[in-house]
């Protein structure tokens, strides 16, 4: 009898309609009018897109307070990389005890953004930043490196005009 009544009286449909109606009204009356809008999308090209804190974007080399490259060429990232996109050439620099990377090449076209390199790094010298606009027009532009190559790993991506560059 109870089931029969529930079939006849569309109370569940009414509940669902109330919920969706509430959502509609909230978004309709707050869109573009309040500091914190109810809708969960952002108008991406005009408004700078915010990604989650753990987002894995492009690989970036970090520098310390004196402007020195933190990397000491332990090759941990090169060894652990599953797609072998990192190539490091060890070198020496005047007035620096630790080894210095002469070349640090990163071929982004094969990178799977697994963050193993960052986890393996014992000196916190690389991170994956929050940049997600990584498309380029040429295949050559995907080979990133230090100064001299088309995409400099210390600077934001040339096509990424709208995303957050770094944290």
């Amino acid at each position, binding site marked *: 009898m109870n089931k029969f009544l529930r*079939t*006849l009286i*569309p109370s569940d*449909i009414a509940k*669902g*309609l109330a*919920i*969706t*109606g509430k*959502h*509609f009204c909230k*978004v*309709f009356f707050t*869109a*573009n*009018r309040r500091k914190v809008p*109810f*809708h*969960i*999308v952002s*108008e991406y*090209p*005009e408004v700078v897109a915010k990604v989650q804190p753990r987002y894995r974007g492009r690989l970036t080399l970090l520098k310390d307070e004196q402007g020195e490259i933190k990397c000491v060429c332990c090759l941990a990232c090169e060894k652990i990389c599953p797609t072998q996109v990192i190539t490091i050439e060890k070198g020496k620099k005047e007035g620096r005890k630790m080894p210095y990377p002469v070349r640090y090449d990163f071929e982004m076209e094969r990178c799977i953004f697994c963050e193993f390199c960052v986890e393996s790094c014992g000196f916190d010298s690389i991170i994956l930043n929050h940049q997600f606009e990584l498309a380029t027009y040429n295949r050559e532009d995907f080979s990133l490196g230090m100064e001299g190559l088309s995409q400099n790993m210390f600077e934001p991506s040339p096509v990424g005009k709208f995303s957050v560059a770094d944290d």
Partner: protein
Amino acid sequence: MPTPTLLQSIAITLIQCVLVVLFVFVVVPLTVFAERKVLGHIQQRLGSTRVASGHIGVTGWMNRGMWKWGRIPVLSYWRGIPGLLADVLKLILKEDIIPAKADKFVFFIAPALSMVSAVVVFAAISFVPGTFFVFPSWFPGLAGLPVSGGIADINVGLLWILGVASVGVYGIVLAGWASNSKYPLLGGLRSAAQMVSYEVPLAISLLAPVVLTGSLNFGEMAQRMATGTSAWGLVPQVFGFLIYLTCGFAETNRLPFDMPEAENELVAGFHTEYSGMKFGFFYLAEYINMTVVSALAAGFFLGGSWLLPFGLQGLVNKLLPAGAWIAGPHAIFFVAKIIFLLFTYIWVRGTIPRYRYDQVMSVAWKYLIPLALVNLLLAAFVRCAV
């Protein structure tokens, strides 16, 4: 008031036709736009706000302009309107492909059938009883002549509406058959079964107003339903409205009864092989059908061009002073009710998931037909007893 000559009455009818077609072709694109916005808002999105997605070129210029206007609260809601224009342009300019093994004539005639049967129904719907407006004395040739609220005042209007509206199923079935492909054929067959099944409870639920009013003329029925029923008439009107609306959703192939055009099972159902403006005709016909079903529901159950629904206006009118503005019929109330029902269509689409095919059939035959019959019985009791 002067009696019009033959030429004048033809001119007046033409003007009425133009007005009604204007109404339909203003409401339908706005419904398409509202569907995008309302579905978006229900899912906490913003709906359509830009043309294409570029930041360069003509569309980029438009997008940047619309973003600037969007800072103004009211204009922000209408930012998607140029997208509608782009849609129409796309439908007209797109290549019209006819499959090699399709039946060319039937393939061509099917969208026209569904479109015509949807539009022609509006001839019997009266937007306001009596005269809509009188031509002013300076108007050349038609000075002082009245324009009535509907195109044709048919005394078996309801039969005519149901008859013409059910021709629309031919459009879908023929489209499915003429495409000479598996998915459209399945979609067409399903829609035939579904629409024939739902025609039965739809007609029975519309019989309740016929019994309550004793008329088949649309304008007369709307007037008696709004102002002439007793307090007991409320019960069959409310139940009849719910049954009619459910059947109307099924009859126009809208979600949750979206069987002919089941995207997740049949690619796109009966119009899989259609492209260009032929597809556009099916698209338009669906939305015009929605408007027709809304107009019938507004006229028979929601009090037509009177303010209050379900015959409450007749009860309230006894308390109101004679000649009060709220007591009389106005076309704007009718249009507002149609628009509210169109919103309800989208609202329900955003809320209820699709039914399975056998569930759709069992809802029609096991629940809606008995309920509609009980409702008809109630209406008959109310009619006899009060």
